[in-house]
């Protein structure tokens, strides 16, 4: 995912919840991202934030600490469905 798309999406969410003030708004942003963003997207998100990617709404940045950190989720070699009778 390109950073500009990610920034746009995160900022759109922030724009909606901004109306609810900093405290509640930040919480809502984090909940929204936790609820709807697949781990891959969240790890991209953390990468972009870590790179100091500018462009994120301050409210998004304030929400970072409340967003669940994904492990390398299900995208690793050998991470297989449990029922699989793989060799």
């Amino acid at each position: 995912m390109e950073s500009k798309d990610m920034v746009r999406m995160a900022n759109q969410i922030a724009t909606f919840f901004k109306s609810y003030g900093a405290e509640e708004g930040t919480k809502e942003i984090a909940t929204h991202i936790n609820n709807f963003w697949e781990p891959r997207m969240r790890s991209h998100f953390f990468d972009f934030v870590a790179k100091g990617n500018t462009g994120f709404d301050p409210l998004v940045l304030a929400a970072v600490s409340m967003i669940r950190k994904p492990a390398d989720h299900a995208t690793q070699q050998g991470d297989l469905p449990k029922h699989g009778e793989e060799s």
Partner: protein
Amino acid sequence: MIIKETDFGTPKSEATQMVTLEIDGHSITVPEGTSIMRAAMELGTKIPKLCATDSLNSFGSCRLCLVEIEGRKGTPASCTTPVAAGIKVKTQSDRLGNLRKGVMELYISDHPLDCLTCAANGDCELQDMAGAVGLRDVRYGYDGDNHVSAKREGVGENFRFKEKDESNPYFTFDPAKCIVCSRCVRACEEVQGTFALTIDGRGFASHVSAGMDEGFMASECVSCGACVQACPTATLTEKSVIKKGQPEHSVVTTCAYCGVGCSFKAEMKGDDVIRMVPYKDGGANEGHSCVKGRFAWGYATHKDRVTKPMIRTRITDPWKEVGWEEAIAHAAGGFKSIQRKYGRGSIGGITSSRCTNEEVYVVQKMIRSAFQNNNVDTCARVCHSPTGYGLSKTFGTSAGTQNFKSVEKADVILIIGANPTDGHPVFASRMKKRIRAGAKLIVADPRKTDSVRSPHIEASFHLPLRPGTNVAIVNALSHVILTEGLENKAFIAERCDTVEFSRWTNFIRDPKNSPEALEAETGVSAEDVRGAARLFATGGNGAIYYGLGVTEHSQGSTMVMGMANLAMLTGNIGREGVGVNPLRGQNNVQGACDMGSFPHELPGYRHISDNVVRDLFNKVWNTTLDSEPGLRIPNMLSAAVDGTFKGIFIQGEDIAQSDPNTNHVTAALEAMEMVVVQDLFLNETAAFAHVFFPGTSFLEKDGTFTNAERRINRVRQVKAPMQGKHEWQVVAELAQAMGYDMKYNNAAEIMDEIALVTPTFAGVSFKKIEEMGSVQWPCNEKAPNGTPMMHVDGFVRGKGRFMITEYVPTPERANRDFPLILTTGRILSQYNVGAQTRRTENSSWHPEDVLEIHPHDAELRGIADGDMVSLTSRIGGTTLRALITERMPQGVIYTTFHHPVTGANVITTEYSDWATNCPEYKVTAVQVRPSNQPSEWQKDWETREEENKRVAAE
């Protein structure tokens, strides 16, 4: 056996006062206002009739239904005479018998005597009545003045004779057989609301005229078929019946086109469908239909249908037909090796809102259990996902609040971003009927749609807003209502969260939300907005109906909440005639959402992170569910381009045509190693597939669809699957091949499992639907017979929540390079990507997608009506034909996306709804220029059509 609904002759009376009378010595009690004819029929006495039928108001023209009433003079017509307390009616006597014979004699003297070779033989009311009255001879002979023969003895050319009109592709009109009962004319008016037919001329010269005697196809006729059903003779007859003869048995099933979900009788001969006739006892349609469901089912046996599974290694290879076992093994092998290399999360799937609940349920179950991830999404992503999000935030459920019938009680109807006459025609007919009876109409739409103005319909307010400013308009409406003190204080105090309300009040009162402040942004006169707001707040029951013009925006979810706010503010929730009603696009989009097609939600809208819910599913499914939400369609595509998503199972969806930014979609598909498509036809997406599983048409399916009213209707199998297997069987076998044990014996078993795991479906079973005809969820212990209306005593979430809906302009704006705004939509005769309707005669009405443009914008660019033009956005370009029309406001142009070669989505952008990623189809900045060249994309498309769809010779 052919199912035949009882015809009571005249409509049911809604009165509550009861009246008792006597008919032929039997006493009967019926509601006041019932006709004598209907009362007699309730006793089982069929009074002869020709001009009456219970879908139409009585007319009293044929004089066949005469009766005698003790103490009254003469012989009144029983269809127009209401019952009265204590009267004694006689339906048969010598006098009545003779009168009726006389009437029939006159009719028959001007009617051809070719019953034996007539298409309606065996299904003709004229024939039946001749039998019923005992007509034995016709004293006048047949040589007099008539409409029957082209030439008359001794007269020559018969000026009264008119040729058959065969212009409509689906039915014929044979004036020689017409008895001028005007049932067709009244059906077109009363049932359909199109007013295409009239009775022209007087006396013996009177005849049925379509348009200005210009023939059906050239008239305003929309081919709904209502007149054909209403016609008691062979005058209006389906061409399929003329060709194949009368059907011998019928099965009740559900239309597989739009979200209205009309019930039909599939009338059959063996396993050949002769015709589809709307079913009078169908909850959604009550006997009406549109051209798609009624006539456009020929695609089911179209020669393009693929009936053998196919595989190939590379997408440039020709397809190879194989057996089911090999195809399933090939797909499973591909998916498994991808997962070995790239991990569990590297594959996923898309469910189809054209498939049954049962078929959708097994696909999401396969993905969550056999693939063991939550990468499942559905095409609702690109249409109504904001509805789910917005309504659950405010009301607590993801679905519309009313049944369609509720519109009969509405006083003010607000339509936003929907064009029901084209998108949801049968609902539109019901709505127009209500408007003709006096309800007021407000339409918010950039285009001057048919809803704004058509025969006998005129919107009180048309708010021609700029695309992308919905939220501004809805905020302005609420602002006016609140600042003028027109809100429903009692409702808000009792039913809504008052803390949230006062927070919202502070926001909405702000002058920036006033219609005056927003006028420049929306392009709508402040005065009209104020007028519309006052009307909505004070006009009685206010009902909101909306479509994709609301959801397919950057602020789609915000807008849904804005409408929910408006409904709560005016107390228009929880009773008949009100509500917030999404008009759903595809037939089972509601069902697909209910069945757990979203990556973050299990069936019944429960979040995947909920441990209790996951435990329940783990037990029933014998699996270990992942607790993280999966990828949504656009995320899958991005991940494919990034290289972490490599395989996809696509059930009956054509994302390469229907999803935005086609080039991005195809790049993503090309990056995948295993694309499995399950569909009827080699669609656009199949050009990128490695495995093709032939699907079943709705005629071969056994299961249920859920319409926009949450109504679960049965889809009954009328013929065996052409490719030998039910779709859910194929999916279960694929899951098996992936190592997960999934097995069902029939669709009813799947529904039983759905009921077991989904509280809102707990009471649903095929048996229940059989008993009730259809049932609206929630159906469980609390509502054993389902729920036609939601939020009656309280909101599902408890108190209704007003949400703050700040208007934010979309980043997609017109600019110097792309000065026009393109918005997209659909038309009546075609459906979605058109895979089905394009393969029927419906293309007679819409052979290609056209670009609608205002005369001024066209002139500025030197474009004449019918010219080919190039349409470009910053994303891509295509070429299509221009149609100059004043329906469009200046600066806004419009097209549909029913034909793949148009590639309307080559133009659309990556912008999407903030909450759900529903793409912003409705706003794209574009430029239009005259051109006679196909675009680059179109040239590629032509090549791909050739190359990627080849099937190897045996």
